[in-house]
């Protein structure tokens, strides 16, 4: 499989405490890669390093390289807002911006300077459809986004990222606050998006990891223990620690 993202020897410290220790792995294009493991393993940190959201945090130090399409995302010539448009992010809690449903979807496009009304309308419909939300909200696009249910809000957040047509979609426990039906809808749309996007997801359970993973990496206390195809890592893990985790001995 062609690698979309190469993570090379990444060590990351926060106030001199290591959050990631010498992590290397390749993320394949047009597939779902799962970062899983117990809390505090560094999954979310690595996710936020890929689109440089951790730039906002003070007192950190990054060694190693993260390549997107072979280019260092921390390189001199990288325009960070542009990078974040190409690498979208969905957070653990649904965080609609305090505006209407429509304005939420096109927020990123507006910032990028898109003004063409018909184009905005078209992208609104397309992204909401991709996030499996269009039918539920098409008649109330100008209502406040906060009036939606939690599950709808999270799908809105996915649509909001998709509206920018990113190359990569990062999802940090996107279904942790959702009921099973909403979770199934989100997972279904991720399967459909896999064809056209590179997806990295931190799942909220080992079961979800197993359901979604084309490729999976197990993180434990800042180390990447093993990274293999999804079918293999859950059925025949190589590392003892991975086996203990997937069989429920800890975590």
């Amino acid at each position, binding site marked *: 499989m062609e690698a979309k993202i190469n993570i090379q020897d990444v060590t990351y410290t926060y106030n001199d405490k290591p959050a990631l220790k010498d992590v290397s792995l390749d993320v394949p294009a047009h597939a779902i890669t799962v970062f899983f493991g117990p809390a505090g393993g560094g999954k979310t940190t690595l996710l936020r390093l890929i689109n440089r959201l951790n730039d906002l945090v003070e007192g950190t130090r990054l060694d190693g390289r993260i390549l997107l399409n072979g280019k260092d995302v921390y390189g001199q010539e990288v325009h960070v807002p542009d990078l974040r448009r190409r690498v979208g992010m969905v957070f653990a809690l649904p965080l609609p911006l305090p505006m209407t449903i429509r304005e939420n979807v096109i927020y990123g496009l507006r*910032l990028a300077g898109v003004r063409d009304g018909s184009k905005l309308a078209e992208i609104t419909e397309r992204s909401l459809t991709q996030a499996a939300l269009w039918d539920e909200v098409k008649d109330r696009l100008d209502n406040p986004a906060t009036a939606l249910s939690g599950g709808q809000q999270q799908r809105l957040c996915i649509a909001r990222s998709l509206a920018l047509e990113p190359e990569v979609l990062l999802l940090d426990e996107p279904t942790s606050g959702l009921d099973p039906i909403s979770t199934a809808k989100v997972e279904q749309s991720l399967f459909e998006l896999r064809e056209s996007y590179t997806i990295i997801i931190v799942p909220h359970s080992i079961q979800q990891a197993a359901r979604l993973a084309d490729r999976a990496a197990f993180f434990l206390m800042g180390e990447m223990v093993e990274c293999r195809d999804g079918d293999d890592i859950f059925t025949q893990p190589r590392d003892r620690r991975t086996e203990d985790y997937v069989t429920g001995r800890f975590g």
Partner: protein
Amino acid sequence: MNRHLSQRIGFGFTALVTLVVVAPILLVVGIIVVRGIGTVNWEFLTAMPRDGMKAGGIFPAIVGTLILTVGTALVAIPIGIGGAIYLSEYARDNWLTRAIRLAIVNLAGIPSVVYGLFGVALFVIFLQFGTSIVAGSLTLALMTLPIVISTAEEALRVVPVEFRTVSASLGGTTWQGVRRVVLPQALPGIITGVILGLLRAAGETAPILFTVAAFYLPRLPSSPLDQTMALPYHLYVISTQVPGMPIGVQYGTALVLLALVLSMNIVATIIRSYFRRRRQW
């Protein structure tokens, strides 16, 4: 002692304390209204003073105070909100920004007469604005800035940090996030701070004493470099500097100043609740 009794005593005590706080305010307002209302009529509000200010109206003082308030707002609002945005959204937490914050807190505690003297030294003499509306407005603005900056910064900080993260994650620059998400959410709080600051400026005497206020100027100012009468200073003058002043004129002037300040307060409350209703979190 049983619980119900001690609760009743507790309630009784807090009610008493509340009364102690509220009673003087009601008394002050009440006395001013009772003694002043007889003097306040259309002529009092719209005519020039006559007979050494003992008769006629206080029109130039009312206009002067309004002009000074607007002048203060023109300077204090952009600088104050700009400073607050810088401190809350851009500045890193280091010794410099901590020093700036400390300075702002301390500036808020400086007596207003010191601002007045500083205004004379800087604006009236050094910058050669003379005793003028410009010098007075700048002095009042200086005094208002700490209030505006600290309340506006506080209002910006209570906007959840997640909104900024989301905006950044969608390709927004810091400024885009501030302008499109953070600032609209912080607006009610910022407006409150601005109005509080302006109210203080409108009622102050000391800062305008040497920088703009005219003792007796029975006409409207003709340019920003002109002097003007102003309500708080006029009140001071007719209460202490002019013998034989009718008491009704003094209380009438106080009533007008009070009404002006309170009505600004009410307008602020209305604006604030309007924006708060539109807030969606």
